[in-house]
């Protein structure tokens, strides 16, 4: 059964529908299965592909943040590796 939700086709992150353990498979009908690199808390974001430092984080099809370092596919995406576009201004 799916353990993540892709909200919008443009997104580069998916949302954990429950807690996902490090090394666990990330599963969604709309995606090819990949592996979670960290423990992902429920409702948190997972990188859907490698994201370069300074690249936009897209959820809801919109830019919600900018990454502050390279994020690998399957990594937990949160305040430790992104910053608000607003704060950069």
């Amino acid at each position: 059964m799916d353990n993540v939700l892709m909200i919008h086709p443009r997104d580069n992150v998916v949302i954990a529908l429950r807690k996902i353990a490090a090394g666990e498979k990330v599963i969604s009908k709309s995606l090819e299965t990949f592996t979670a690199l960290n423990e992902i808390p429920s409702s948190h974001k997972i990188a859907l592909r490698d994201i370069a430092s300074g690249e936009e984080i897209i959820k809801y099809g919109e830019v919600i943040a900018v990454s502050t370092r390279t994020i690998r596919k399957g990594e937990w995406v949160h305040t430790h590796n992104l910053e608000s576009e607003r704060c950069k201004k």
Partner: protein
Amino acid sequence: MTINGYMRKNGDFGTRNHVLILPTVFCVNGVVRKIVKEVPEAVGINHAYGCSRGGLRDIEILFRMLSGMVHNPNVGGVILVGLGCEVSNSKNLMPHIQDAGKPIEIFNVQDDGGSLKTAEKATAAARQMLEKVNCQQRVPMPWNKLTVSMKCGGSDAMSGVTANTALGAVSDWLVEKGATVMFGENTEMIGADHILKRRAKNEQVAGWIGKMVEEAEKLTHDIMGPLAGLVISPGNMDGGMSTIAEKSMGCIFKGGSSTINQVVDYGEVPAEHGLILQDGPGNDGDAMTGMAASGSQLIIFSTGRGTPIGFPILPVIKVSSNSKTYEAMPDDIDINAGILLEGTSLNVLRDRIIELMIRVINGEKTKAESNEMDAFTFMTVDPPF
């Protein structure tokens, strides 16, 4: 997929055909309660405020809300109960409501022999009005005569993932059908103004959006001072929200992804169709009153923690963001978006909400309607004196 409503003289359609017992001021709330006790088929409103709210903006809002309840398409006739000396007495209100094209009977406690006599006279009038109003039949209603408002309240970490995503899909479907979809809660748009502006129909609408969000942010700072940052709180962060733009998107997404055609003031009736932004508060009661005054005939309301609140003259469909809340409050929640977490696809959930919405438009009662869970409050900007 046919929807049927009650056609009004001005071409509006109601999803309900209420006889509304409307107090002009809280001094006469007890009279309204007496009438509704005798005539339970009528819908009574409990007024939130008295006089002594003198600011010009507050008076403007007061008249717009009362007049908005009278004009709302779900209302087939009005028993207006006033006191006599209030700012919003029937004489002052009349110019705002006489064009409503529906029966309005007026009673004033100071002229009609006090509370009990007034209640007696108004009860008789309400019975007569009901007999007439109940004769009206539903007729096929075009989708472009429907305005649905999207609201969220008592949110949790899943609200922006499951429920509001589903509401967004319903919003897009409704706009495609030609209906009007309204959403608001200006404090929930802070940090996402650049995203909303990009979706504006033209420069003018983008300008309105910018001004609206800027004012909401300033107000938040004025009221909350150093705590303004709590608009994105540690609780939000724990729930996976990393930035205020992300939190705001979770709220805004319930309006879908259509072009924003107009920004209306709190309680203002939109001139445009499609997606409309209301410059109003996020508070559940205040927001729903504004949406009703703007002519909405239905509200779809997502909730994570589970709020039972509805609105006196509008059906309010409750959508829970998770199954735990749905199972904990089976008499309050109409449909569960938590099934998205359990393998149901977004398209299936969207279609189920649409089917329920159509049944509700055609007369099926929502849980909040059956339970008579409602409130009538509206935004005020100045303190009372």
